[in-house]
């Protein structure tokens, strides 16, 4: 990976793509570790409504928490292969717990002829 990365401009709110090239969410938040006496280090990318809602006004955030109960998915930074226009992961979405809702809806959709 490159020497430096602008997390706010190049990672946050960018599309995440898994090892198969399938879109599996957006970077909704970024988590850091704070080792004592050292600068903060990126630990996880956080994906899910509870992650992006925390960045919105309080009322919207509260509503999202009321309606949506799915927990966020944390993608360890070590899973990131490289960052270009998209954040490319090393593993598949299923392995990391991403895109569950799409697979669930997909099972239902695949019952329709022609799916």
């Amino acid at each position, binding site marked *: 990976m490159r020497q430096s990365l602008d997390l706010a401009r190049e990672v946050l709110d960018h599309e995440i793509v898994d090892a198969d090239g399938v*879109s599996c969410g957006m970077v909704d938040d970024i988590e850091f570790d704070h080792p004592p006496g050292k600068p903060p280090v990126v630990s996880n990318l956080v994906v899910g409504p509870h992650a992006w809602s925390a960045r919105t006004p309080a009322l919207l955030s509260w509503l999202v928490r009321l309606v949506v109960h799915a927990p966020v998915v944390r993608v360890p930074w070590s899973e990131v292969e490289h960052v270009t226009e998209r954040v490319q992961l090393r593993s598949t979405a299923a392995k990391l717990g991403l895109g569950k809702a799409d697979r669930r809806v997909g099972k239902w959709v695949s019952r329709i002829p022609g799916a």
Partner: protein
Amino acid sequence: MGRFAEVFLGILTAVGGFVEIGELTFTLTAGSIFGYTLLWVTALGTAGIILYCEMAGRIAAVKHRAVFSLIRERTGFTAGLITLVAATGVSVLTCAAEIGGVALVWQLLSAWSYRWLVIAALVFFVLVVWWLEFEWIERVFGLGGLLMCVYVATALAEGPSWSDLLAGLVPRTPDVASGRELANYWYYAVAILSSIMLPYETYFYASGGIEDQWKPKDITLNRVIVIVGFALGGLLSVSLVVIGAEFFQAHSIQPQLPGSAAISAVLAFGSVGLFAALLGMFFAFAGAAIETALSGAYNIAQFVGWPWGKYREPRNAARFTLTWLVIFVACTAIIVTGIDPVQVVEYSIVFSVVVLPFTYLPVLVVAADKRIMGEYANGIASNVLGWIYLVIITLAAIVAIPLFVFTHGGQA
């Protein structure tokens, strides 16, 4: 397919898909009330949509990014979410109006019950979008929409006043008696600009570029299609103004129905004119319904990061598929209540212009950014024109709703 054939088809598709029910009724009515004096807005809008679709298409070809993921990245999450809600609302209203327009056209062909035709239209759209591949959807409705060229022929048959037409291309305020008439003029100016530059067109065009797997080598293809195709489509808009000015103004009619537009073609060309007009309007409105429903689904999927695209099997882009299905059903539910589709599209056009600056700003900023686009970034002309247009549409966005209220929807 050969390169030339691809360009040719792309141009024809762009022409056939240029006009939808809102633009049809607004330009005819504007011609009827104001003669040729609003023609300059048609030219302005056409140049604007060429400029921004070219940029969005270029971004899609180089970066494989479509508009709404750019919006989220550039304007931040909350502002992007507000734009998404507004853009989706506007797409739903437009889609509902187009579904109503299709049912109206089918009623003119069959004389069957309007409400049942609305339901039939829903079934038709779901089956078409489910089964047809993206390029076939583009081709069928784009090429079928070319029948709208009967209105170009009708305009020529009306014998336009060429001196008035050329004079109409020069922007100016009209010679009118009252403040209300002036407000009416500017209301129609804003509405025509909005109806030509409806945001769904840019969303769909860019997403379509990704569906068609464009690469940097397709940039020239993108440019030719957009410039030639939309310019020819703009000629169709000009023809509608001419028909408004020469035919409807003489009869003191402000057309509010597709059948009204068709009458002008019938009186010029008989049954051939009638069927060309009705079938042309069917393909144009149907194409617009499909584009708006798909762009609503594209926008949501791109904003939240779902897999999307007609190039994927429906089960592999499940929530995207569900979204466009839900949009069609919701739009049908709106229109089957019997609400006037032309009234619906008027609201959509007025609110669209408010969404436009939020749509175009991220496109312009990304297309101009050399760090992102490298050698494919905007040249000086695109940058200058892009910023000029952004100022124009921002002004239009500010005055749109006040003008709508003050002129009682252009009836003052």
